[in-house]
Structures are given as C-alpha cells and as structure tokens.
C-alpha cells in the first residue's frame, strides 16, 4: 500500500514543519560500556561478548571511564551543560535484542543537557538547533529476521541474534523541537546530522561511519497550519542511516503528513520505517503500552559525578571545532569562498584533506574529487566518500599524469577500472594497454601532417602567436586517439617550428 502525498511545494504552501532528531552515536572505545569485551565491528557472531553482555544472572556491570569522558566531550562540543551528578536507569522492555530485558540508559539525569549547534546551510545561512540532552546508554544486539520476505520481520519464521553489538557505548543526542526551518527543513535535517557526525568524528570519540551504523538518526516530523503555535502530531522515522536518506525521509514525511491532514484525517503518532529502495516510509507500530518502559534508577551502578576540574580538563583536550577547522582549511588550501562551499556541499572536505595528507596538492585533490568523483557518486547515488576511492589511488593516478605516462582522459578511464575492482591504477594501465604514445616517431608524423593541413596556424605560431598551438595539438591528439601526452606534443611542435616555448 502506498501512502498519498502532496507535492513538497503544496505541502509548504499549506503547512509549517516542526522537526526533532534523536541521533545515536556509537563510541569507538576499545571495550563495551559496562563490560571488558571488545567493541569491534563485524567479527564472528557472539564472540565479542562475555557474561555481562549476555545478561547472565548475577553479573555486575562496571562503567567504562573512557566512555564517560567521550560522552562529556560530546556534551561540551554540543555546547551543553555537564551534569555535576547523574545516574543510569533501566529501560525495561522485552525484545530479543536485549538479553537482560532492559537497556541500561539514562532517564531523568542525562550527563549533558541544554546545548545548541549552529548549522550552516548550503547558502551560508546559519540556523541554530537547540539540544535538549545527550545521554549515555548501551547498544542492543543485532537481529536478522529469517524466512518470509528476507530481512523483514513481517512474515519472518524466526530471528537470529548476534550480541557482539550488545553493550557498545552509545550517546543519544536529542534536539528540542526545531521550528522555523520552513522549506529548508529537509536540507537542515541533513546538515544537522552531518554536523553531529562531523563533531564526533573530529573529537575522535566515534568512527562516525553511518553505513556501519556508528551514527544513526531517528527523525521526528510534524506539520501545523501556518500561524498556529501548537504542534501537530508527529511521526518518528527510524532506520535513516545516510545523510541523503535523512533529507529524503524528512521531505517524504512532510509530503505524507500534508496529504493526511488535507484528507481531514488526524496524523497517527507512530514509528515509521524508512525504505531506501522506494524512498518512502511504512507504518511501524503505533505508540502504545510497549513504550511504557518503567524506568527506574539502575541499582547496580553508582552515580557519576563530573567535578568541574575534570570537565575543564576534558574541555582543554577538545580539538578545533569543525567550523573553525573549515576556516583554517580554506585558508590553507587557498580555495575561493565559492570553491570551498562547493567542496563542503559536495561532502568531500574530509576526503580532500586525506588526499592532501596522502601527498596531493590542494589543487590536484580538488580537481579529482570535484571533477571526477562527485559526478560518479551522483550517478551511483551514493555519498562521494562511499564510492570506494582512496586517497592513495588519486595520488598514484595524478603522478602517472604528471610523469606523462597517461593523460587526463586515460586517468579517468583508469579510475573507472579501479572502481570496478580491476586492480591498482598501475595494473589497470597495463591490462588495458593504456599508455601515452611517448615514442616521438609517430608523434612527429602526426605533427607534420597537422602542420601541413593547417599552414596558416603554423605561420601564426612561427610569428610568435604561441596560443594558436591548441589547434595543432588538438589535431595530433585526434590522430593518436588521445594516446599522446599533450605536453610532449606541444614541445615537439615548437621544436619543429623552431620557436622558443
């Protein structure tokens, strides 16, 4: 069943969106939040666990100090107040992802609260998002539903559980209701999640890979008629795990809510599931008794006190904030405002920084990412960083071009080969027989033919109009099917005509 939607423009004409986000950040500590089992992604199921993660009777959790410090750092980076004293609480529910039948979380006393984040939109507008709280909790195990439609719980015969992720430290960042974004709501949603991801990555407290679930977003959307203060009924879309998906999900939910409201029906307060394939959401469970979690203070863990000295010590270790970093990088790289904004909006600033660190110049890194990779990512419908290009590949390709082994056109072809998994650039150049014609013999033949065909141009060059050389170079490149090194061709033409370059 497909839900009705209005066009985004019509929805915006009639309604005012209010957003809210819960972003879960997995910390990259060496061990779990409450056990000494390793916090590692993707190992053999049920091997990165011990008795605490499996919820064995009588076991006791012990808090990971590094996880607390990371949580305080996140709070500080989000301009939050850090609680002088806070505690953990049990969130009780029955579901096989949690073997204890409760999740250890924080309820009435989060470690960080009352913060904000200034989000820069693509045109440079700054929008302040208020942070309600950031609290600590543990991740749950991973369920795989078997039988029925693969991977969906509907019609599944049974589920398989891997508890490796169970107990991985999480910080959940909750915004206050975000009002006033208007038609920029989808863009703001993406920019907000991107900013949180950037911050936690910059702090070094999370690997921040959305495709691995290190940063996960639940997006709340509600609509109200323009001019009305009271919020509409919201939906909470889960499983929104890429930046593009966040933008699309918010946009879709706005369009869906608008159609529901237009039909005169009330919006149902419910969980929605995001489907990347169709870019739509479907109804999950309605909010009900299942959300009566009967929180109570965790008796097995004593409270956390964060002395002001400790907080200040941690504050002193914070790295340069991302906004300041952007200013610095732009200056270092010598990009214009427009060039730099394009790089940021394309989501390749980190990639360019890594590429420069791998040995490329700022100009070369930008040329490759903006010129070659962003377009391919768009075609493949993924974020550029997820396309699978690593900085070393770019450095290698660029060196081949600079050394005159291949030209730009071939380099682009080699990049396609790398992305297709055909091997390293050097291997692909060999396999595909791509090499610039560097033997001067065939080049000179082509040059002589081109000069003979365009005697007027030859005269111009002889007369000192060196810029006219492009026509001859072009003819030679055509004759050699692009296999020539344009730089070498230029030298040879000048030599041939006895002109100083």
């Amino acid at each position: 069943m497909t839900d009705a939607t209005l066009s985004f423009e019509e929805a915006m004409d009639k309604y005012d969106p209010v957003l809210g986000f819960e972003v879960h950040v997995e910390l990259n500590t060496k061990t779990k939040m409450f056990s000494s089992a390793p916090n590692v992604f993707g190992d053999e199921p049920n091997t990165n666990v011990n008795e605490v993660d499996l919820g064995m009777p009588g076991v006791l959790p012990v808090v990971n100090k590094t996880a607390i410090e990371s949580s305080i750092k996140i709070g500080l980076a989000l301009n939050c107040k850090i609680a002088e004293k806070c505690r953990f609480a049990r969130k009780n529910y029955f579901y096989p992802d949690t073997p204890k039948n409760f999740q250890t979380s924080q309820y009435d006393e989060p470690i960080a609260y009352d913060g904000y984040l200034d989000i820069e939109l693509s045109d440079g507008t700054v929008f302040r998002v208020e942070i309600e709280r950031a609290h600590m909790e543990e991740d749950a195990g991973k369920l795989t539903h078997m039988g029925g439609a693969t991977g969906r719980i509907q019609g599944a015969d049974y589920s398989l559980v891997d508890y490796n992720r169970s107990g991985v430290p999480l910080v959940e960042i909750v915004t206050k209701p975000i009002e006033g974004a208007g038609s920029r709501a989808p863009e703001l949603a993406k920019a907000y999640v991107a900013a949180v991801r950037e911050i936690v990555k910059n702090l070094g407290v999370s690997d921040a890979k959305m495709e691995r679930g290190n940063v996960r977003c639940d997006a709340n959307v509600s609509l109200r008629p323009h001019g009305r203060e009271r919020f509409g009924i919201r939906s909470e879309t889960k499983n929104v795990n890429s930046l593009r998906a966040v933008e699309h999900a918010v946009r879709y939910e706005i369009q869906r809510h608008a159609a529901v409201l237009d039909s005169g029906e009330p919006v149902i307060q419910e969980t929605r599931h995001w489907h990347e394939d169709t870019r739509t959401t479907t109804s999950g469970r309605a909010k009900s008794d299942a959300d009566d979690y009967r929180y109570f203070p965790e008796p097995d863990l004593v409270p956390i006190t964060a002395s002001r000295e400790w907080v200040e010590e941690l504050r002193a270790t914070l790295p340069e904030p991302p906004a300041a970093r952007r200013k610095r990088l732009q200056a270092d790289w010598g990009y214009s405002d427009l060039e730099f904004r394009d790089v940021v909006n394309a989501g390749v600033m980190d990639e360019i920084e890594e590429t420069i660190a791998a040995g490329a110049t700022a100009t070369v890194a930008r040329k490759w990412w903006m010129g070659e990779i962003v377009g391919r990512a768009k075609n493949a419908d993924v974020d550029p960083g997820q396309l699978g290009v690593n900085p070393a590949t770019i450095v290698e390709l660029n060196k081949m071009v600079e050394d005159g082994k291949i030209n730009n056109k071939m380099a682009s072809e080699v990049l396609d080969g790398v992305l297709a998994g055909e091997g390293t650039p050097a291997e692909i150049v060999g396999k595909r027989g791509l090499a610039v014609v560097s033997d001067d013999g065939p080049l000179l033949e082509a040059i002589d033919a081109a000069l003979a065909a365009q005697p007027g141009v030859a005269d111009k060059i002889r007369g000192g109009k060196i810029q006219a050389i492009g026509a001859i170079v072009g003819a030679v490149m055509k004759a050699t099917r692009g296999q020539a090194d344009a730089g070498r061709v230029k030298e040879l033409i000048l030599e041939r005509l006895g002109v100083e370059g």
Partner: protein
Amino acid sequence: MAAINRDDVAHLAQLAHIEMSAEELDRMAGELAVIVDSVKSVSEAAGDDVPATSHPIPLTNVFREDVVGHTFTAEQSLSGAPDAYEGRFKVPAILDED
C-alpha cells in the same frame, strides 16, 4: 484511596510478561495497594529538602579502565541457548514489535 488498582496490576503484568489469573489479579491488587500506601508514608516523612535516594551507599564514579578483558567463544556464548543456528541465538519471530 489505593494508588494502584486491578487494572494497573493487569497492565503491569502484561508489560512484565507475567501471566496472572483473575484471582491472582484480585489478590495482588490488594497487596500492592498496601505496599504503595506504605511507600507513600515514607515520602510524607521526607520533606522537599531531602533528595530522593537512588543509591544508599555514598559512592560515585566506580570506573573501569578501557582495557579489553575476557570474551566467550561462540560455543560458550550459545551453550545455554534453547536454540541456535550458525553461531547465533535462534529466537521466535516477534511480530507485534519491531
């Protein structure tokens, strides 16, 4: 008046996945009402200036260094499982929640 009634008990039993008969619900409603009332008398004794106690021991910040300790093998993890498949716990599909 009791702060907890029969419906509350039935609701809690459902949340806690405890099956209770009609007689048990009646009896527990009465017993829990007494307990809740008793707790209420404690809150009357403590004034607003007394913070709620969640932990009786005056201890905070019991931490562990972030150092990897012992783990189980998959066989050990699954040794008490009623059912398992390919190194993972096998559980019934739970359809009314996701």
